[in-house]
């Protein structure tokens, strides 16, 4: 998939909720039409949201079949100040995915290497990270 076209703006008032470390829940659509919610880590590139997952995970398969996703970001101590980003997956890339995952690890976790600091280093041989770019179609904020 390529990244082209325009995107709606992420409001300044709520950008901090998409630049971690916060709580972010992604909802994708399963092949049978049911929703699947899963916690993810994210950051921003301009007004586009970057998340990271593994090719082996169900949410990756869901996004391949249906690129329309939504995510809700909030802080646990103030959950009703939140932002919902509804958008489309416009890019799925293994290139640079591990570097991106390490950036997220430094933001959200302890350490700078996902495989080794956040999870066992051995898992590197079992999972293939994928960087996902989400272009917002609509943004809704609360609080």
């Amino acid at each position, binding site marked *: 998939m390529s990244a082209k076209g325009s995107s709606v703006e992420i409001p300044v008032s709520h950008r901090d909720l998409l630049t971690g*470390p916060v*709580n972010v*829940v992604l*909802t*994708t*659509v399963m092949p049978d*039409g*049911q*929703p*699947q*919610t*899963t*916690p993810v880590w994210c950051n921003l590139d301009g007004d586009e949201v970057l998340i990271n997952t593994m090719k082996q995970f169900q949410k990756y398969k869901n996004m391949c079949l*249906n690129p*329309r*996703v*939504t*995510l*809700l970001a*909030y802080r*646990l101590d103030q*959950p*009703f100040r*939140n932002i*919902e980003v*509804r958008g489309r997956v416009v890019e799925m890339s293994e290139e640079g995915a591990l570097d991106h995952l390490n950036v997220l690890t430094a933001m*959200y*976790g*302890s350490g700078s290497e996902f495989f080794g600091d*956040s*999870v*066992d280093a051995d*898992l590197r041989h079992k999972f293939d990270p994928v960087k996902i770019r989400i272009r917002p179609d609509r943004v809704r904020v*609360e609080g």
Partner: protein
Amino acid sequence: MTVDLTPDQVWEEIEQNVFAVIGMVTKDNEARTVGIVYVVRDGRLYIASDSDAWKVRHIKENPHVSLTIPVHKSVPLMPWVKIPAATITFCGEAKILNPSDVSQDIFEALFRGMTEDQERLASTSVIEVKPEKDFITYGIGVSLMQMRDPKLARGRAPVGV
């Protein structure tokens, strides 16, 4: 390998929290999410909502929902140490009820402070969510150190009701 949890362990965590993120799918097959406050009774989650809210409309059209409940974790005496929230995720079936359809106990828990406001109640609905299949957990029933290892931190338990 996942942590073996009992349904009661997970329900206890759910009952100790009040905030969840609910995911829905619109009639156009698009995902939606919103934060909600719930109360738990007899293996169901209950959520109060304006009757004309979009989540009510979407659930009427597609009752399948998915919820993620965050559970706060922190290192005692060192709250600055970053620990990801533990989570409980499950799918379920939702239905829309009138406030008068729920028991007095649930009604009072949901509408605390507005039980006499008939005008407001007339425009309010109750969403009942019945969890299905399994709870998928991360960091529930494990130590903070074990949360760093997905093999040790992931858990699963049947919904059990």
